[in-house]
């Protein structure tokens, strides 16, 4: 196969109209050949535009639920969290097939967990309302917008013995003070405590702000530092009294270098 032969296949390949044998030839050749890669990119950009030339149609609202449920992300899961209980309690459901003693036990556990879910949901709703108010006041959106575009860097923070499951990513632009922290699998906080982010520069720790743990274990923080992020060498997250501390005093749950 020469370059000439491959070039002949590129227009069809870009349109997804090559047959499997032709597509394979293209896939083998293109990574090795800059000229063909450029030509393919040009055809592809054109093919990409064709995707817009279709009548606009909306998928059903049910599809959104189905997709989110299939991925196990929040709304689908929340909607389904009571379903299993209904299935258990339904005639012919699991409950009636169990011996009465186990059934009573199962019911007690189920009700307890339902109560827990409802409580967390109420908490989540309170948080949502509170945050929407704050966002409106401070305009967190504008700061996030500053993060957009090329040059954004992502760093992963490591967990500590204090919270071995915890993980976190920081997104920032080295030339600006805007950053975004997303943490997951955070341990629940004792009452009156918050998580606090520390920006570490030449061994000095300054606060990057405090954040809470959401019921699903996540935490999110938009940071607006007075210095460009490039001046910091490392980050840490500790548990501190509500309102935050002027320097870290509590156990460290996450740490990482920039």
């Amino acid at each position, binding site marked *: 196969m020469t370059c000439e032969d491959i070039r002949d296949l590129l*227009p069809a390949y*870009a*349109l*997804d*109209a090559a047959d499997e044998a*032709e597509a*394979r030839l293209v896939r083998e050749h293109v990574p090795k050949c800059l*000229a063909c890669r*450029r*030509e393919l*990119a*040009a055809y*592809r*950009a*054109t093919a990409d*535009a*064709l*995707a*817009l*030339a*279709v*009548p*606009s*149609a*909306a*998928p*059903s609202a049910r*599809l959104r639920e*189905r*997709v*989110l449920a299939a*991925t196990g*992300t*929040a709304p689908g899961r929340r909607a389904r969290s009571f379903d299993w209980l209904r299935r258990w309690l339904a005639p012919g459901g699991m409950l009636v097939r169990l011996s009465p003693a186990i059934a009573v036990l199962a019911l007690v556990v189920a009700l307890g967990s339902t109560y827990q879910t409802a409580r967390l949901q109420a908490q989540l709703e309170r*948080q949502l309302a509170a*945050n929407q108010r*704050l*966002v409106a006041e*401070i305009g*967190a959106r504008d*700061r996030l917008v500053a993060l*957009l*575009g090329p040059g*954004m860097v*992502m760093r992963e923070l490591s967990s500590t013995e204090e919270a071995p499951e915890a*993980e976190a990513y920081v*997104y920032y632009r080295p030339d600006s003070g805007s950053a975004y922290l997303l943490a997951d699998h955070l341990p629940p906080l004792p009452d009156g405590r918050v998580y606090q982010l520390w920006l570490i520069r030449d061994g*000095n720790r300054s606060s990057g*702000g*405090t*954040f809470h*743990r*959401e019921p699903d274990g996540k935490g*999110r923080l*938009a*940071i*607006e*530092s007075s210095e460009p992020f490039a001046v910091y060498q490392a980050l840490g997250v500790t548990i501190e009294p509500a309102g935050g501390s*002027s*320097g870290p005093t509590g156990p460290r749950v996450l740490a990482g270098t920039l």
Partner: protein
Amino acid sequence: MAIWPRRAKDLSGDPAAYAALDDAVLAGLLAARDGRALEELYDRYSRLVFSLALRVLSQRERAEEVVQDVFVKLWREPRLYDPARGPFRPWLLRVAHHRAIDEVRRARHEVMPDPADDSESDFWQTLPDSGPLPEESAFAALDREAVLSALEALPAAQREAIELAYFAGLTQSEIAGRTGEPLGTVKTRVRLGIKRLRDLLGGPEAMVVR
């Protein structure tokens, strides 16, 4: 020492914040298992993906399956999208198009998916194999009207060849079979058609070297 007057905002549970994030950031958040990033991307692009799949498959149910496949795959393997290789929207639409074409061909040939066939996984892995070329984003600002009028301006035979290829999922041999033209003629029409389309869309003419 602490420099306290620094603004920071706890975003816990703030859906509005996600609307302000661009695609690449949201795709990055998927890798961090942020379900709200998926919701936001779904709300932005499910309609486009569905419209494209519906145009190819002509059946709502099957088009919805494509939408579901694409977003579930994106959630499970967010790193398949690499922001360094180009913007998110055309990438997602390419993935959706390929998936829909796959489906329409399968139905046409009445073949069952071959479990030993690696072309699907190959595809997901090698999809944006054209490298980081700035030209890829040249059409980012195009709208439907512009593309439709460019298609209209093509010679009818070229337009037909392109539409049979891109929307009906026919290979060039199949187009030749259907239109009764020699394969060589079909290939020429596809090539000339796509080059002409590019010019009409205002892409840099120098891109297509021959």
